[in-house]
């Protein structure tokens, strides 16, 4: 218990000291996660929109698979990405293993199903509202998807934020493919795991609090964006 207060104190001390190592791993966390979430959004949002709009045999199974893929254990993702990027694997020549790129790839795989699923749900409601109109106006599939994504952008922010949350807190996969290398691939979560395994609970908690504060900041900022949107909307 005392450790929890020590953790809070450690967090304050860390932030107050502007520890360069802390700043470095925090920025790396942000960089890896934002890159991964951006790509996941570029894939997941159109995919969700497509699945909301399209009706074809097997769609139900694809939707269920997508939801199931939200349960992809990070360790398994890490392992798969490792096997592909390893020198012994097909993409070994790219020399991406144990670099931030490998971490981005792993996080994309983890986050895309989540972003796609939530987008699908958000867009399905709007599609129900717009369906007759868009069909009546003869909008092509592409035009339908674009319209739904644009008019549903408020809800899609939530999908992106969920993806951000999932990615920024993820450790299992980035640990395996990044290697938690000091000055190269160490991020907040792998640092937390390391300190925990060293039994330095206060420091681990402190880093966790920093991570949470970061997530909260990102959410408050996007919430501000969302609010502006909402005000402009009916």
């Amino acid at each position: 218990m005392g450790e929890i207060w020590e953790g809070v104190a450690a967090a304050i001390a860390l932030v107050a000291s502007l520890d360069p190592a802390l700043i470095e791993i925090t920025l790396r966390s942000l960089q890896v996660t934002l890159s991964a979430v951006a790509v996941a959004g570029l894939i997941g949002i159109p995919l969700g929109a497509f699945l909301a709009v399209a009706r074809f045999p097997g769609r139900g199974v694809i939707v269920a698979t997508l939801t199931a893929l939200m349960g992809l254990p990070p360790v398994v993702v890490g392992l798969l990405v490792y096997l592909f990027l390893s020198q012994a694997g097909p993409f070994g020549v790219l020399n991406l293993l144990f670099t931030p790129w490998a971490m981005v790839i792993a996080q994309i795989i983890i986050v895309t199903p989540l972003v796609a699923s939530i987008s699908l749900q958000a867009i399905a409601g709007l599609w129900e509202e717009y369906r007759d109109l868009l069909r009546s106006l003869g909008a092509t599939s592409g035009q339908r998807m674009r319209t739904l994504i644009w008019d549903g952008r408020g809800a899609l922010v939530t999908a992106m934020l969920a993806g951000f949350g999932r990615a920024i807190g993820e450790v299992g996969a980035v640990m395996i493919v990044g290697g938690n290398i000091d000055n190269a691939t160490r991020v907040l979560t792998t640092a937390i795991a390391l300190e925990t395994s060293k039994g330095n609970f206060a420091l681990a908690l402190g880093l966790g609090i920093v991570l949470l504060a970061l997530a909260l900041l990102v959410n408050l900022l996007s919430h501000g964006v969302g609010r502006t949107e909402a005000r402009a909307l009916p």
Partner: protein
Amino acid sequence: DGVFRLAVTTSVQNSGLADHLLPLAEEALDFDIQAIVVGTGQALRLGAAGDVDAVLVHSEAAERDFVAAGFGSHRREIMYNDFVLLGPAEDPAGIAKAGSPPEAMAAIAAAEAPFVSRGDDSGTHRRELALWAEAGIAPEGRWYREGGSGMGATLNIAAAMGAYVLSDRASWLASGNRASLALLVEDPDALFNQYSFIPVTPPRRAGAKGAAGLFETWLTGSDTQALIGEFRIDGMPLFLPNARPQ
């Protein structure tokens, strides 16, 4: 990519030795060094796949298999320490009075006092199993918990459960969470723990050419060996250098 990658086991990293030595090596050798911290099994797999250029581990039988299979060019002993038996300070099974490590294990089994095993096929786990065998005991029952985790996590479990546990000395000294655990049995000869360096062959990564050899030379040099011996926590040495000059 001009980087030398070394897979090291948790004890080397968690003790702080890696963070102490590697910057010095980078300075001396003029190439980047990256340490990847994993269990012995995973370290050897990374080596076999050519994803790291060398490994620094402690599990002799597995290391010899690795070299025999042609994944490593040779095995070079670097340093050693020993395993220690830890347990609650009250020592309910009274192992501190035991004459030898196997007798201590027998006392734990007789008292059915909780014992946490690494359960992960690591060098430490294999050594623990060997001790049970020496004691003539096949441990089982509710008191014997197979944790299936790394050394740090296993120490955290033992600390929280007030259980006995076998640990390498470096991990024990480096742990920030000893709770009520105390060092009860030590026997540096019987519980000898050797760390070795193995360069990976053939080098698949374009990597720093010849870096493994240069690093091995640096690591086994008398200056570095002295540094290892001088590395302490709370005044206690964690590793003793024992590289033989070639």
